[in-house]
Structures are given as C-alpha cells and as structure tokens.
C-alpha cells in the first residue's frame, strides 16, 4: 500500500497544491487518479506529457498533476492543444474537460478535432451539470432534470457524447464511470496509446448541485447508481440490446486505424519541399 501511495506522489504536485478545491465526494479526483495510473502503466516520461483543460471543475485538474499543464479558456482546450500537438507531435497531449466545456461552448472544437483525427486524448468528465457556477443545465442534463436554470425540469435532449465522437470521426471512443475506476484507467491507457483522436467519457456526478436539487442522495448513493445502472459491452455491435435500455453502457465503442493529422501534415511538408 505504501509503495502505491509513493507512486501517485510522483505524479502529483502534492506538496504545493493540495488539498484540492473539489467538493468532498466528487468524482473528478477519481478520474485524475485513473489518468495517473494509466500514464504510469504506460511508462511515459512526465516531461513528454501535457495536460490541457478549459474552464470548470474539471478544468482545475491540471494544477494538481506534475506534467506540462495548461488551464486555458472556457471551451477552447482542444484548440489550444491542437496548436501544441502540431509543433510537439512527440508529446502525449491529454485534454480534460467537463460536459459543458467540451460539448456546449466547446462543441465545435470537439467535433472538428475528431474530424481531423489529431492525436489528442480527450477525457470528458460528464457530471451532467455546470457544477462550478452552481448547477445550471448542461448539454448532457437528462430530460426532466432539475437545475437552477431549469427549475421546472430540463426540456433539452442530452448529447450522447460517444455517438457524437464516433460520428465526427474519432479513432477511439470509450465510456466508463467513476465507480469503475480500474476499468476507467484501462480505457484511458488505451486512449492515450491510440494514434489519432481518442475520447473517453468518464460518467461522474455532482452531488453538490444536481444531486441536491434532484434529491439523489449522498455521493455514496450516486456512486451506487453508477454501479447498479450501468452495463458493460465487449462488442460494440451488441450496444442496442434490451438489457442496455436506460442504462449507462460501458466499454469501447470505436477503435479504428485512420491516418493521424500530424503524420499527414508531415507528408504535406514533404510534398511542399519536393515541389
């Protein structure tokens, strides 16, 4: 146990920046830890890893990890990361975003990063609400959910993040939850290793805002919900089965080999210099 703790300390700015600013019981720390375990298992050099975020609760993650870290503007993390990846293609660039950050204000950058298939790892922590600003509805809030800006129930359809990423052209798309922490770090590891744009949706919860407004109980209750209302698939083709209806489906949905953007651009340079 002691040794495991030491290992985590290698990746945290624990002497400088802790305790963190997340609410007790929040799932974001679990995602952060899963990323660290994935990076450690892959044996990546910390100097070669960048973590870029936007704004929101998840946006604060880069402060705590000992990588090259950048906390950018709301929604734009993928665009900043695109510039960095183009001039430093050898780096592993991990982009962490919340659901509002990635899919509302940043929705355009999300689909275009996927369409380009640029080698970034996008991790979307989906707690289905704007937590930092106090619980407004987000693009993934369920229909009927109560939020401070939907006091009579949300009437907007939620975005299916993984379907969106698949349709937009991502090379790797997977989903797990913060209850399934070990599964989450395996998927994140696969995503980081994948050449091309990879997306991992980490389903989490916000007990402080959404949970309180909708009377969903304590963090433990919300964690139990993730455990009891999710189902794992081994084959993406079996996704639509009856057993999965109304459940959070976990697993890998897309894993395809398509040309990666920075490698294609190297060919552009070759063509330009040959001409």
């Amino acid at each position, binding site marked *: 146990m002691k040794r495991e703790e030491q290992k985590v300390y290698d990746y945290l700015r624990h002497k400088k920046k802790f305790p963190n600013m997340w609410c007790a019981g929040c799932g974001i720390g679990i995602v952060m830890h899963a990323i660290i375990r994935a990076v450690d298992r892959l044996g990546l050099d910390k100097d070669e890893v960048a973590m870029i975020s936007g704004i929101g609760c998840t946006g604060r993650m880069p402060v705590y990890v000992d990588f090259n870290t*950048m906390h950018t503007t709301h929604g734009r993390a993928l665009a900043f990361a695109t510039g960095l990846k183009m001039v430093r293609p050898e780096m592993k660039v991990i982009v962490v975003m919340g659901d509002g950050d990635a899919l509302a204000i940043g929705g355009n950058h999300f689909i275009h990063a996927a369409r380009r298939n640029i080698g970034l790892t996008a991790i979307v922590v989906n707690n289905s609400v704007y937590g930092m600003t106090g619980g407004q509805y987000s693009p993934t809030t369920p229909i009927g959910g109560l939020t401070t800006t939907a006091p009579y129930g949300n009437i907007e359809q939620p975005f299916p993040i993984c379907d969106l990423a698949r349709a937009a052209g991502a090379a790797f798309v997977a989903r797990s939850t913060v209850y399934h922490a070990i599964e989450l770090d395996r998927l994140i590891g696969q995503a980081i290793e994948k050449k091309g744009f990879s997306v991992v949706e980490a389903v989490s919860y916000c007990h402080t805002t959404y949970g309180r407004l909708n009377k969903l109980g304590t963090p433990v209750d919300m964690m139990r919900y993730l455990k009891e209302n999710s189902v794992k698939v081994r084959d993406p083709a079996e996704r639509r089965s009856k057993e999965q209806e109304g459940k959070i489906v976990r697993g890998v949905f897309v894993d395809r080999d398509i040309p990666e953007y920075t490698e294609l651009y190297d060919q552009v340079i070759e063509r330009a210099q040959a001409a």
Partner: protein
Amino acid sequence: MAVKLMQGNEACAEGAIAAGCRFFAGYPITPATGIAEALARRLPQVGGKFIQMEDEIASIAAVIGASVGGAKAMTATSGPGFSLMQENIGYAAMAEIPCVIVDVQRGGPSTGLPTAPSQGDVMQSRWGTHGDHPIIVLSPSSVAETFHLTVQAFNFSEKYRTPVILLMDEVIAHMREKVELPSAEMIEVTERISTDVPAEWYFPYDEAASDVPPMVSFGEGYRYHITGLMHDRAGFPTLRLDEINPWLTRVFRKIERGLGEIIMVEEEWTKGARTVVVAYGCTVRSARHAVRMAQGKRYKVGLVKLLTLWPFAEEVIEQVARTARRIIVPELNRGQLALEVERVAGRNKVRRVNRADGEMLTPQQILAAIEEK
C-alpha cells in the same frame, strides 16, 4: 536583396517567414484571406505548419498552444474574426505568451463592408479584451512597411512575451507595390529569452531576474503550469494581493521600459510647421499628398506618421503640439486615435477629418482641413 511586386497580404506572409514564424492558424475572412493562402503554401516549404481551424476563436487558441510548444506563431483575420479572438488575446496577455495577431481592418460594425477599407478597429485593438492589459499595436502604410512591421511585430512579441497586433487595412492588404525584400542576413530577428537553470529553480513568472521572465517551451523538461487566472511566480492561481499587484505592475512596466524602441514614428517636414497632420495606415498616403499640395501653396505643414499606435506616442505629440497651432487627424473612422491626440494636445488644437463609408479619404479632403481658417 530581391525586388518584387507584391500585395500587402503577401508581404505580411513573407515578413512572418523572415521573422521565423513557423506556425499559422487561421480562418478565411476577407480581406485577410491572402495571408492564410500565402502561408499555407510557404510554411511547409520551410518546415513550418499551417492549419485552417474551425473558427477564429480556435485559430488564436491554436496559435497560443503552438507558441507554448516553442514555435513563433501568428494568425490573421479581419474585424468580425478579430472580435471573436478577443478573449484569447487577453489569455495571451495574462499568461505572457508571445504571438502575433494580424487584423486587416474592413468596414464595420458587424459584417459591415467586407471589401472596403476602414480604420475602425483602433480602439478594439487596444481595449478589445476585458481587463487592464498591456498591448503593442503596429500599423503599416505601405507594402514594404508591412514586411518590416511584421518582422518587428514578432521581435517585440518574443522580446516582451506579449501578444502584438499588426493593424493593417484593406487598402494596404490588397494593394500591389514594388518591394525590396532584404536578404535573410540583413534582417534582425529576436528570439525569446529562455534559460537552462535546473527545473526546480525555474519560475515562469519570476520578476527577480527581469521584467520579462525567461520562457521555456513545453516538452523541454520544465513541467510548469500556465493559466488565464491571476497567478503567482510559478504560474499557479493566486488570490493574494501581494502577488496580484506585483504582476500587474510588472506587465505594464515591461512595456513602459521598452517604449524607446517600441514607439516608432516618422516625422516629415514637422520642423517649424504651423499645421501638422498625424496619420497612420493607408491614410498616411492621402495625408502626405495633401501636405505636399499645401506646401505648394506655401503653407507650413508637416506630417507625423505613426507606425506604432499603441502604446500611444504621447511624447511625440506633446512635442509637436508645443510649436504647431493645429493638428489634423485624418482617419477612416468616426474619430478614434483623434481621442488620444486630443487628450495629449488639447481639444482646441485638433481637427478631425473622418470618413467611415468604405471610401478612402482623398488628399483634397485633408487639404481642405489644412486650408480651413
């Protein structure tokens, strides 16, 4: 030295390459598209990279990301896109990331007059992003000047760790002129200050050594934090007044200490002039013509050409105002830089000559103001 006939947009692209720019991200927009087209062709030839992003917000974001990775980086746009870029220009000012933003001004507001010249973004270039921040804005009045000021924009940007805006206009961007391109060894190119101190001693915002702290690129063994939040010397968010105030003072001081070289002004016939025309960008061309016509009529008239709009050339205008009875400020807007000239020279001395309908100011319009009693 090579003599070429080229457009302002092409000269801007060539100036960028000469300055060492190796990354461009942009989005098509009239009248700035020519810069993107030229760099899409030129950058990969020199091993650089070009990307057309999904919008202008993404373009400036990618430029800042590339600069953090160590590349000299630029974007180019026009009014509507410049408006979209403002938030991230503030990010570059806050995080002190060097980058160059070209705004080829067109008639506005909104979609306005996409193919017509304007100088309507003078105040936006200074105060477009929210919050107090230093900025450098340069404005060329010829194709050749566009080349040189683009190089200068990169040099200032790298030297002072600040976004620099090159404020062009549709006339200069689309006009073709003869340009003498200097050979590479004749061009002075500034590189950003880096460091090789051990990583644990590196503080990206440490003011101990200099007002412009050394900047190390990501991926070079210095794992530090960059944020748009107010930050301490290590780059981490802070709410401490004893860290916020020194930061604010330093980022303004770093530009103030460089004013001697940053403020570029050219004076023509100003000695003993009773009337002085203060102009910038394409308007300089009409102004010079008007001044010559007036001189032919024995008026004592001079011209001050501002190559640097921000920080404002207060001392030069103060000096001119001491001897000149009247200062004329022609602009393709309803009076923007005139506000600064009036602030320094006094309202009584300043005559504005304005036009914002998409047409150039003619020499005759400026001459009429010179001749006015």
